[in-house]
C-alpha cells in the first residue's frame, strides 16, 4: 500500500465536460489492471474549474464522487459523497494547498453507502467525479486532487 494522489493528471483519468442540468461525470478513473485503490473520508479535496464560457461555475453546481461496478448500467453511478462548489470558487488553487482553510473542503462519505468511511475499488471498477449544474464546465480547466492509497494485487 502506498500513498498516492487521485488526480485529473493521472494517465488513467478521463476528463470530459458534463451535460448542463444532468448529473454527469467530468472525470472518470478506470482502475488499472492489477491494482486496487482505497479512498477514505476526512481529507481536503483540491479542485479548480471554470465554466465553459470562462469564469467561475455557478454556485448552484453540486459535485460528487461516485463509483460504478462492472456490468452496472451505464448511467448508474453510486454517489458516495456530495459537496458544494462554493469553497473551491472562493479559494485559489494556491490557497487550497494550505490546510488552514480546509474545513469546508473536507470530503464526507454518505454513511449508508460507505459504512466504514473507506472505499476500496478494484480492477474494472470505475470512480468518477460527477457535476450537476446549470451550465457545463470547461474540461480543459478542471483540476482535482484527493489522497488515495494504491495497492498492487
Amino acid at each position, binding site marked *: 500500500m502506498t500513498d498516492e494522489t487521485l488526480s485529473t493528471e493521472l494517465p488513467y483519468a478521463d476528463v470530459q465536460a458534463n451535460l448542463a442540468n444532468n448529473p454527469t461525470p467530468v472525470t472518470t478513473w478506470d482502475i488499472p489492471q492489477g491494482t486496487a485503490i482505497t479512498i477514505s473520508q476526512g481529507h481536503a479535496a483540491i479542485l479548480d474549474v471554470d465554466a465553459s464560457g470562462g469564469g467561475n461555475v455557478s454556485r448552484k453546481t453540486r459535485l460528487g464522487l461516485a463509483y460504478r461496478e462492472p456490468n452496472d448500467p451505464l448511467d448508474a453511478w453510486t454517489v458516495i459523497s456530495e459537496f458544494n462548489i462554493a469553497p473551491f470558487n472562493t479559494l*485559489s488553487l494556491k490557497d487550497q*494547498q494550505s490546510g488552514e482553510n480546509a474545513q469546508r473542503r473536507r470530503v464526507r462519505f454518505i454513511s449508508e453507502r460507505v459504512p466504514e468511511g473507506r472505499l476500496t475499488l478494484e480492477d474494472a471498477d470505475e470512480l468518477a467525479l460527477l457535476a450537476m449544474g446549470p451550465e457545463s464546465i470547461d474540461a480543459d480547466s478542471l483540476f482535482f*486532487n484527493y489522497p488515495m492509497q494504491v495497492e498492487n494485487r
Partner: protein
Amino acid sequence: MPGNQRPEKSVYLGPEKFDFKSYTPGSEGIVGTTQVPTTQVWRVPTGMPLVVALVGRQTATVTSGADGQTISLDPEAPLTDFLDDVTASEYTEDASLVGYFDSDGDGDPDTLITDSTQVSYDGNFGTDGDFVSSVDVSESAGGGDVDVAFYATMRHGLTKIQKRNSGKGNVSQELQAEDSITWAFSNPDAPSTDRQITWDARNDGLRGVIPPKFNLDLIFYDKEFATAVAREDAVNVEVSIPVSQRPVREDEDPADLRRKVSQSMVA
C-alpha cells in the same frame, strides 16, 4: 578517523547535479537523472522539505515596433512562492516565468527580456488567481518581427521521484509522486502551513537506501504538454532534493548492497 568512518551529512541535489533530458508528451518519461557517487551511499531523510519545479516552453512572435502587445500564455504560468516574481518587476533568469527574445536574428530566442531591452516588458501582466495568463511586451528596434520564448513553471502533469538500479535488470521504485501544481505551489520555507512537500515517511528503512552507482530520476507525465528542462535557456528549473550521504563502510561490499536493495525493490 579513517575517511570511510565519517558520519552522514546532508547533501542537497540541485539542478546542476542533474542531467536533463527532453520529453515527448503522452507517456511517462525520465526528464532528469543523477547518480550516487561510487564511494557513497544515500539515504532518504524522511520529513525534509523537497523542491521540484520543472518548466515548459512556449513561443510567440512580437510584431515589429509593437507598443504593449499582449501575449497570452497557454498553459498559464503559476506564481511560484520560492522563485522570483515577474509581476513584481523581478525580471531575472530565476523567475517562475522567464522570457527570452531573438536579439541577433539567428532564430534562437536567447536574450533575457527585462524592462529595458529591445523587446521589453511594459509592466502589465494579466493574472488569473495565482497564475500569469498574459504578458504585455513592446518592441523598440522596429527592424522586423521578433521571436520570443517563455519558460514557465509546469502547471500540468505529474512529477515523480524514483530510484533506479543501473545496468542489468534496471529495476526502479517510486519514492514520491505529486501533481506538478502541488510541487509548484509548495512552500519549502513555511513549515507552519502544510504547503510543504516533505520526503514521504514510507521511504524509511531499506526503501530509502540508494546504494553507490544507483540513479535518482525525475519522472514526468502529461498527455499534452512537454517539459523543456533539457534546453540550455531553461535555467529557472528549480530542484532541491535533500539526501543523507555517507561513505561506503570498510566492511560493506557495494555490490552486495546493490543486490540487497534491488531485491527489495522487486517485491
